[in-house]
């Protein structure tokens, strides 16, 4: 590895660690990509009843987060849902 590369790239050891951390979160949660996709679609369906969202910009993932109980980190579902427009009245239109 040249000096130039060192500033440019992460070391492969760090890459491995980051990849593993992400991989293990979903391994431990026992959540397949199919299930994640289903959750995502359901979230879109529910939120769309109340407001207009940017479905293409929606991002959900399972991450580790510190638990409030103080017993270490626990998996958490993180969702970033960009809102385009709040619907009038903010009530479901049945």
């Amino acid at each position, binding site marked *: *590895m040249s000096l130039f590369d060192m500033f440019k790239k992460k*070391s*492969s*050891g*760090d890459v*491995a*660690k980051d*990849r*593993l*951390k992400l*991989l*293990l979160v979903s*391994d*431990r949660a026992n959540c397949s990509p199919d299930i994640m996709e289903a959750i995502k679609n359901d979230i879109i369906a529910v939120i769309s009843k109340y407001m207009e969202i940017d479905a293409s910009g929606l991002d959900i993932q399972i991450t580790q987060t510190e638990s409030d109980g103080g017993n*270490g980190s626990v998996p958490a579902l993180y969702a970033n849902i960009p809102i385009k427009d709040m619907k009038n009245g903010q009530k479901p239109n049945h």
Partner: protein
Amino acid sequence: MSEVIVVTSGKGGVGKTTTSANVGTGLAKLNKKVVLIDTDIGLRNLGVVMGLENRIVYNLVDVIEGNCRYKQALIKDKRYPNLYLLPSAQTRDKTSVSPEQMKALIDELRQEFDYIILDCPAGIEQGFKNAIAGADRALVVTTPEVSAIRDADRIIGLLEANDLKRSDLIVNRIRMDMVKKGDMMSIDDVVDILSINLIGAVPDDENIVISTNNGEPLVGNDTLAGQAYMNICKRILGEDIPLLDLSEKSGFWNKLKAIFSSK
């Protein structure tokens, strides 16, 4: 009081059998009465690593099926007065044994031995279930590679689900030269990811290959790996031994090697 330790990893080829051989031999050197059990039915390698392959008469399946008494199947290692091996069967498969049968056999062996070391097969199927059935604690072996660590994580989850009281981690085949360059995860990285207690780290030492060639475990000799394994054995006995500095000495040896190879 006897203790039953299963050596497991999930992934194959990370050093379960080498670890079993060295931990078993090391504990025997520390004056404990030890039996090593090869639970990898169909692929028996512990006997070869121990250099006892020519003395196998009866095996684990013979004992389980009642073809012989367990004392007839045990091979006494002549180099150490307290060390015995119960070899696995070569011509059978893992369905020949059930977890209940393993448990019953281990309870019988507890009467006679201080430590019972079980060399677990790779994978998470029947062979794994047999190996962990009678165990009190586990040594989880991994190398600093993504696939091995991922499998170790899975194994740790399964051990917890099976109510094993204690699991300790061994990081095997660590190369400090690569860690320094950032091209290998460090011991701390691995411990951080798996978050279980570290009981030892073993360097990637060519002496391991040599010792396997000769069928003589290197635990306790003056190689870096030999010392690392002996430290693990002492920690199993509850001694508080600081981690071996793998970098300093390997640097020294590398320098020494460099002096000789440059001539």
